[in-house]
């Protein structure tokens, strides 16, 4: 813990504190009008005053983002396994997987509301659509990069397709899957908030209402909480990554 603090916690905290102090100074001096950029101290006060409302919105967004992310993880990995069978399956369906990467979520969010209603289902669908592609792409890349000698070895020892998948291909793809999940977790939060812009609930809905009320401090306070949600999900994936890869993968070995 004594070594962890200066090595991992301090480096991101230092620039954060410097930027916050700088913003406080710049706005206090009147160089930027407070209706464009509020003072960080005002944002903190707004956070405290509206804590209950923001916490309730955070709960809604967290549920929707986590549900969308979980759905992306399961469907994305299953889709990648199917695509990794290669041949015509990959050629026929991969272009449609790319659709999820290129779809402008802000444009189709209203459609999702029409399809799923003005409730959390539309928000989950929005989080899912935005976050699934990185899972598919990274899992597929991992499944296709398995050491050919190990594939030969499994073949030689008469391993079934299921055994090869569970004992070789998925573990081999795990570092790639976790990389995809890191990207996907942040996108799920973005997708949920965009969905909430339309449905009106959660942090997205609160940002919309605060913006219409010109309560810029509240907009920033809500944005801060939304960012912290994304960071928390990212941190959870990092912990899972560290626990599962620390013994064997270069990306985690150096950190342990």
């Amino acid at each position, binding site marked *: 813990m004594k070594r962890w603090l200066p090595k991992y916690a301090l480096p991101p905290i230092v620039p954060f504190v410097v930027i916050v102090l700088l913003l406080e100074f710049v706005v206090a001096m009147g160089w930027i009008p407070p209706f464009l950029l509020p003072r960080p101290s005002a944002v903190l006060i707004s956070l405290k005053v509206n804590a209950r409302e923001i916490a309730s919105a955070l709960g809604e967004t967290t549920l929707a983002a986590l549900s969308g992310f979980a759905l992306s993880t399961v469907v994305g990995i299953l889709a990648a396994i199917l695509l990794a069978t290669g041949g015509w399956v990959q050629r026929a369906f991969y272009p449609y997987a790319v659709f999820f990467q290129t779809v402008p979520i802000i444009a189709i969010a209203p459609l999702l509301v029409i399809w799923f209603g003005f409730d959390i289902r539309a928000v989950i669908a929005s989080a899912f659509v935005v976050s699934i592609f990185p899972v598919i792409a990274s899992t597929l890349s991992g499944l296709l990069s398995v*050491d050919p*000698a*190990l594939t*030969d*070895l*499994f*073949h*030689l*020892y*008469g*391993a079934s397709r299921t*055994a090869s998948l569970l*004992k*070789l291909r998925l*573990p081999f793809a*795990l570092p790639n899957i976790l990389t995809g999940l890191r990207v996907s977790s942040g996108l799920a939060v973005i997708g949920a908030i965009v969905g909430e812009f339309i449905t009106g609930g959660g942090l997205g809905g609160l940002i919309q209402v605060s913006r219409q009320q010109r309560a810029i401090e509240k907009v920033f306070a809500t944005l801060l909480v939304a960012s912290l949600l994304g960071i928390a999900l990212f941190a959870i994936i990092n912990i899972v990554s560290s626990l599962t890869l620390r*013994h*064997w*993968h270069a990306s985690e*070995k150096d950190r342990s």
Partner: protein
Amino acid sequence: MTPASPAISAPVRGLGVVVDTVEKTFVGGVQAVAALSLEVPGGQFLSLLGPSGCGKSTLLRLIAGLDWPTRGAICFSRSRTAQDVSFVFQDAHLLPWCNVLHNAALPLELAGVAKSERLDRAEAQLRQVGLADALHRYPAQLSGGMRMRVSLARAMVTSPSLLLLDEPFAALDEITRQHLDERLRQLWIERAMTVIFVTHSINEAAYLADRAIVFSARPARVMLDHDLTVRLPHVREASLRTTALFAEQMRALYVALEGGQRA
């Protein structure tokens, strides 16, 4: 746990191999093997020598069933099972997320052997290659020589009747390589299995095998089929490598290899 289970220490009968006018042409027209025939009696230790790219590794993969001949056939002295044949690659190719014990037990795990039995057998095999104190280490924590020992233990854990090795010790330093050669020869004597060993090292080929075949450049033709048992003893000490008798055998292989490269 027992130092060696009966399933490991019991000698097995080597699987005989017949390569019958086998030809292998890859997509793009590269002919790696052309009308090659040879017979390996069960229980023999055979070394295959030849210039780089002459088709030795291809032949080994064909025998393992990892690839198919374009023409001809490869037959065995009896029907083979998945546990009969083991393969050791040039690199160790271990599962990096599994520790040494679980890596060595992998073939048994894929064969559906109960966990306690497979771990007992893997541990016994790892003891035989001198890795008793590294059972719970991960491949990334091992030296190249140790990784290769795990690979050898994994290949031996099923008590194969045919062991195929493709330049397994090529990347190791000379001393580690000689130690592993000695260990391999000893294992072969204990198990009575058939061994086909591909190497670029004349010294290794002469020390390990009872028979050495020298191939020409691609496509492989047999330049020399040399019986090493006439002059070299069955049980071989490390000091054998420094004798005139051994040098004489090496010379015979060298002359054939040089001729094969020119051919």
